[in-house]
Structures are given as C-alpha cells and as structure tokens.
C-alpha cells in the first residue's frame, strides 16, 4: 500500500508539473460535444442517443490517458527503477489504475457540465446521484482495463495502436453497460434511479478485470 501510494503521489505530481494529460482529455471532450452539438444540429439530446454521445466522448478522452499512462516510466527509466526495488509488482498496477481513475473523475468534472451546457439532456440534475454512481463504476472499468492495456502496449513498437486494438474490445461490455445504464436517466420522465442490472454488470466486470489484470501484471512489466 505504501509503495502504491508513493507511485501515485509521484504520478500526480508529474501531471501537475507537466499538465500533459488532463488538459488534453478535457479539451477533447469539450470539442467532441461541440462537434455533436453542431453536427447533429440539436440543442438537446435525450435517452440512449445522449447516453451514447456521452459514453463515446468519455472513451475518446480515456484513450488519451491510457496511451500516456506509462510513457514516463518507459522514457525516463521508471520501470527499471521500480524493478530494482524490493517491492510487490502489483503496487504499480494499483497506483496506475488509481491515477487513471482520478484522471477520469477530473475529466468528468469538466465533461459533465460541458455536456449539460451543449447538449442539455433532460433531468440530468434530478438523476445526478445515479448518473455519478454509474460513471464511477465506468471509471473503474476504464482504470483497470486501461492500465492493463497500457502496460501491455508500452513495450511494443506499435504501442499507439495496441491501446485501441486490444483496449476497445475489452472495454465494450463496460461501455455498453454504461450507455444502457445512463440512457434511462436522461429521459424526460426519468425516475432518477439506475437499473440495478447495469450497476451489477459494471461492478462484476470491474472485479473480473481487476483480478485478471493483477494476476497477469507481473509478466507484463518484467522482461
């Protein structure tokens, strides 16, 4: 736990210093909403269309963070430094997944207001607690799968392609569950409660992928 905290602190400090990832993610998400706003020529979206637009935008922004997650480790010797230390390899997975989760939450602090402003989904304020719960579970999936895929890609020459090629199929179940869970919350007569089955699907998918990634992570970062 102490090791994971040390790595997470270092990653957040590096992001604060360089601002390489979060501003890009925020800009991409806002730009995407602007494109949908003018491309669809609609001031307001609702239901599954709104959910689809929002989920796809999150995915695009998440891919930026996923591709950059291990860049400092690769380019500045962070992997070697970590491997030389007598620590559990899982600590790096936990720290990187936590960093990605925090990046996603920070992104959503910008993306949700921008979504509300540009595409004005109905009853978003009313459904906000349920909407937030679904997003946090979706962030868990992005964090776990994204960290795994990023670690897999970082030692390959085609690292920029590996993320989308492997990451997208792995994320599909989580993306579908997120969109299907969010859709009913963004309708004019929304109840404000999420459907339990989509929460369960997301929670189980997060858990399954976390166990799988922890089991395989050692092999990904060692030579």
């Amino acid at each position: 736990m102490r090791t994971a905290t040390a790595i997470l602190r270092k990653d957040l400090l590096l992001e604060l210093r360089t601002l390489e990832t979060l501003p890009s993610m925020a800009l991409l998400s806002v730009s995407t909403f602007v494109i949908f706003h003018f491309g669809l020529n609609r001031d307001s979206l609702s239901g599954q269309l709104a959910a689809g637009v929002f989920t796809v935008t999150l995915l695009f922004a998440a891919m930026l963070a996923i591709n950059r997650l291990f860049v400092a480790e690769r380019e500045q010797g962070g992997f070697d430094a970590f491997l030389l230390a007598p620590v559990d390899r899982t600590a790096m997975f936990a720290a990187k997944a936590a960093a990605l989760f925090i990046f996603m939450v920070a992104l959503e602090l910008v993306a949700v207001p921008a979504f509300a402003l540009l595409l004005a989904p109905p009853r978003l304020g009313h459904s906000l607690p349920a909407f937030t719960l679904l997003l946090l579970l979706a962030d868990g999936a992005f964090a776990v799968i994204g960290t795994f895929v990023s670690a897999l890609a970082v030692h390959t020459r085609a690292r920029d392609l590996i993320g989308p090629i492997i990451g997208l199929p792995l994320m599909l179940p989580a993306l579908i569950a997120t969109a299907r869970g969010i859709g009913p919350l963004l309708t004019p007569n929304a109840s404000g409660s999420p459907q339990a089955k989509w929460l369960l699907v997301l929670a189980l998918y997060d858990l399954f992928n976390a166990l799988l990634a922890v089991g395989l992570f050692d092999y990904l970062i060692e030579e």
Partner: protein
Amino acid sequence: MRDAASTITTESAPPPGGGGQPVVALEGLSRHFGERSALRGITLELGAGQTLAVLGRNGAGKSTLLRILATLLRPHSGSVRLFGEPLPRQAWAVRGRIGLLGHEPLLYRDLSGRENLTYHARLHRVPAARVEEVLASVGMRQRGDDPVRSLSRGMVQRLTVARAVLHRPELLLLDEPRSNLDPAAGDLVEPLIGRGAGITRVLTSHDPQAALAEADVVLALSGGRAAYLGPPAGLAPERLRGLYA
C-alpha cells in the same frame, strides 16, 4: 559445449574475497537478442568487497551483463547467483541489495532531485533523512529543488550516484560511473562508489587503465565471450589494446 575461453579463464580467476560465499557467481551465462549473442558462456565468481572490471569495446556485452546482474534481464542459459540466490527465480530476494548506476539516470526529468530521491527512498523503505544525507554527499543540497531537466549532465550524474547508493546497496553495478563528471565531482562521489566504499562492485569503463587500477578481477569481453578473466596484472598491454582494436 563450454567455450575454451571460459574454461581457461575461470581457473585463473582469484578466489572470492574473505573466503566466504561469492557475491556474484556466474556459470556458463549466455544471453542473446534475436540471432545475436550478447554473452556466451561466461563463468566467474566475485567475492565480497572485490571489484570486477568488465572491459571491451562497444557492443561487447558489458551493459547486458550489468542488466542481468541487476535482475532487469533474464539469462537465456547458464546460472546466475547473487548472494547465493539463483536468478531470476529469487530476484525479489536480492533486489534491495543492488545499486545500479547505468547509462540512464532513472530520474524523472520534471521532478526535482529531492523529489526523485524521496520517491526512491519510499520504494526502498529508506528514511527520509537519508535523502538529505546523500544529497549533501554529492554536493547537490543547494540545487536539490531544481527540476532534473534544468541541471547539467554532471549534476544529473551526481544525482544518479546519490540514487544508486541511497539504500546502501551491498553490490554496486557501475556502467561508466564517472562519465560527465569533472575531477572535483569525481572526487566527491569517490567515497560513495569508489574502492574506499568497501562495496562489492562490477564496473565497466571505456578508460581501461582507470578500470584496471580499481579492479581485483578483470573480465575482458570480446563478442560476448570471455577473452580474459583474471587479475589485472595478468592482462598484457598488447592483449588489452587488442580488445579495443
């Protein structure tokens, strides 16, 4: 089949210092990258407190040997034991006992020297006070809060030395340790990584005379093979020149 060079040179190697268990014990170590052999059949022992100088031209296998000893690369055949523990199976048991000073500083450019060392101290469970101690030892306390990217190469190398010895390693792996250091900085780091530190060392250098002066054992590599293994005095000058020809 073991190559002749390894067999001959093993017999001429001095015994481990102190007569105890060798810190480094290699037996028929080989490593390749694709079709290219980087190391072939290297056999040697290095005792506690001894210094092994690894000589050879660029691409001879020096850095590969150091990375295997650092547990960062796996051997493809033969055996490697550090402190009696077989690698890579027991790598976790020796990792905190090794200090690596390689070509890469292993420091984050956008963090300060102090932040980098604090991070490494946390990884190695070293008290924070040790960070100030090593910063002072390499003369970097005043510039300790500057981002690494703003420092000269010599200063980065001094920080790299501080990072390598931060956790008081028992085995130092030194790849060109004095590169980018001026004579004054070289003197500054000498107590930390020099012979006087009393630490078992494996060092490579493009300055063979300097390396020979520090060594108890010399391993000369040529094309990944041991062209010579033995005491520095046994390496004839013409043979040394031949290594770099």
